[in-house]
């Protein structure tokens, strides 16, 4: 067992840290969440800077313009990115973390050439059209149909939780191309241009107020068949491809941010005084912070342990479910702790007088979505108990 980064990793760390120290302050604070144009400029502008400096797509293969970093360089990248409080991936989330990786794994050469460089450069925003009103945890029950008509699929249906639909250029869309077979066997994965006629968008107001999400209504949308990724009706397998691409590192940056955030909260607590004592003098509060930090430490270690498994076996294990479950649950408790520490300041969703109260409470609200999205905690527990512990499946 060895947890030591190599000299090459440390050299990469020094270069990246010095670049981030210079560029992060220059990029400034993010615009208000309701200003979509400014948000696109901010998120994509940062992506362009990453690309020009050679830091875009750190885990993408170099043949597609990525850095092709080793697993340990990737960890260094996330550590430094979190430490520098560099901009959140934002609108690039679906393209960089989901759609792009799927195209790399399953797309045609033309699809790769068309989309990958633009995603990396920050020229192309993607959204996700997976969930439907009656297909949530049971995603394979989706009903949106795509019927072949000559060189086109004619798409009809309704999607929901379509992230960044308002500003997206393309949508990774799951459609039913064969209604005659059992539900997993009739799904296809297509790239839908968002400027086609028949697409209408209606934003969803979430508990955070403004939203990255929307409902999307599709009425006779004609998608050219060359936008199909992989084989027709093979979409369910393709949907699971990105899990493989992520090599188990999907939550690495978020986990490291927890460690940083708890350290920041300790500093906040040392500066909150009341009756001549600081909040940090409260042994109950310190122990809660220490306990949460211990769990964050163990998740960071578990991430490295799982990456070690990937390096040994070449495939990320099913253990990613354990990490997703543990991280998203801990994440909620950490930001709830932060919000409680803010006291009455936490009753404002706007930052007050230079404090991070608004950021903290807004992040806490957002943590509530992560135990639901991408396979809820309950779905993860089913996966762990059935596929790892070998307990019988329930009828589904």
């Amino acid at each position: 067992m060895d947890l030591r980064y190599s000299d090459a990793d440390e050299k990469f760390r020094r270069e990246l840290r010095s670049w981030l120290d210079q560029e992060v302050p220059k990029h400034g604070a993010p615009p208000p969440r309701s200003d979509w144009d400014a948000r696109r400029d901010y998120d994509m502008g940062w992506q362009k800077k990453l690309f020009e400096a050679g830091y875009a797509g750190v885990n993408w293969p170099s043949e597609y313009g990525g850095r092709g970093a080793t697993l340990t360089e990737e960890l260094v990248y996330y550590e430094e990115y979190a430490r520098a409080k560099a901009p959140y991936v934002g609108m690039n989330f679906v393209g960089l973390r989901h759609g792009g990786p799927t195209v790399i794994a399953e797309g045609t050469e033309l699809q790769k050439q068309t989309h990958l460089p633009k995603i990396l450069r920050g020229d192309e925003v993607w959204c996700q059209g997976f969930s439907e009103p009656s297909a949530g945890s049971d995603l394979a029950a989706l009903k949106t149909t795509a019927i072949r008509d000559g060189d086109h699929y004619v798409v009809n249906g309704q999607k929901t939780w379509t992230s960044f639909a308002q500003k997206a250029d393309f949508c990774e869309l799951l459609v039913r191309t064969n209604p005659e077979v059992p539900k997993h066997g009739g799904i296809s994965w297509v790239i839908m241009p968002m400027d086609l006629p028949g697409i209408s968008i209606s934003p969803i107001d979430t508990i955070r107020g403004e939203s990255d999400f929307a409902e999307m209504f599709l009425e006779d949308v004609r998608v050219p068949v060359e936008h199909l990724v992989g084989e027709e009706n093979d979409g369910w397998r393709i949907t699971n491809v990105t899990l493989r691409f992520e090599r188990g590192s999907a939550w690495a940056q978020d986990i490291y941010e927890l460690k940083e955030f708890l350290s920041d909260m300790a500093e906040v607590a040392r500066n909150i005084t009341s009756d001549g004592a600081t909040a940090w003098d409260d042994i109950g509060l310190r122990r809660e912070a220490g306990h949460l930090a211990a769990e964050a430490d163990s998740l960071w270690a578990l991430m490295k342990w799982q990456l070690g498994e990937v390096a040994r076996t070449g495939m990320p294990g099913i253990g990613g479910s354990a990490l997703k479950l543990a991280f998203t649950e801990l994440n909620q408790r950490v930001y709830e702790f932060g919000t409680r520490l803010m006291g009455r300041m936490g009753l404002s969703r706007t930052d007050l007088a230079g404090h991070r109260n608004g950021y903290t409470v807004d992040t806490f609200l957002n943590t509530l979505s992560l135990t639901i999205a991408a396979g809820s905690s309950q779905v993860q527990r089913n996966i762990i108990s059935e596929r790892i512990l070998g307990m019988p499946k329930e009828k589904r």
Partner: protein
Amino acid sequence: MEFQFTEDQTALQEGIRSFCEGRFPFDGIAELEKAPFSKELWAELAEMGVFGLRLPEDQGGVGLGMADAAIVFAELGRRVVPGPTVWGAALASVIDGVASGEVVVSGLDTRLASPAGMTLVDYGDQLDVLVVLRSDGVYRVEGSALSGELVEEPLDPLTPMLAVTDLPQGEKIGDNDLAHQIRVEATLLASAFFLGMAESTVEYAVAYAKGREQFDRPIAGFQAIKHIAADMYVKQEMARAAVYAAACTFDDPEIGNPIRAIASARVVAGEAAMHNARKCVQIYGGMGFTWEMPPHYYLKRTFVLENTLGTGEFASEIVARHIDAA
């Protein structure tokens, strides 16, 4: 970085596991209860290298690192092996004769609360030496100087306790730095023992649930049971990663803060052991409440270790002190 067992470490794990499974089969546990600990058992453990693992070879040890010791102690935990093994391994470099198995040693940290005028000493009637960690350093008390009554009903049937009324002061053999070093090392070994217990209780619970039928099917098929088991599994995985990360950081302190890493491992592994033992009792149902089934041994040993080197709450406080230095 390759945070996985090496081939040698896998072989070490297999060796100690097959020893423990042969020496402490669960169907022999009732027999073991009659005499949980003896000098012969201690000598056998010493022969396996349990105490001398980290001592240099020229001092009669095996010359391995803390990561290797953690692997061994997780295996001891899986079978709730009796004896003051954590102290033996932490004190092998302090007390002569421990590594070879000639001297039976245990330890006592006076920071831990005990009723006024009385101290419960694990295996107190079997010791050659008791090492006492006091607020001003490390003291050596000869086993023959300990007097008291054996507790009639110790919580853990495999951990007899001597109730010592007048704990001798003993001879000072080290300062606070040594006391600190012993505490840190013993805490890590105890965390590894917790890890092994947390693993075993997941395995017992899942195996029992697969075999136990109610409503005409195995209870392992009910989501209510599956979700408890999944949470137990997650705690075990977190504990394993934390314990081995702490051991690696101890062996190579340049990669992080060993004090924080060890305290974090103690928090997470202790909680995994306690949670999983309780839930194991629950999944066994009525059988889990019987003496003849395994879960209660794990629950009870967890309480022994919880009260050996400071509680989980105390370890959380240590993490908080180091919260700015991961």
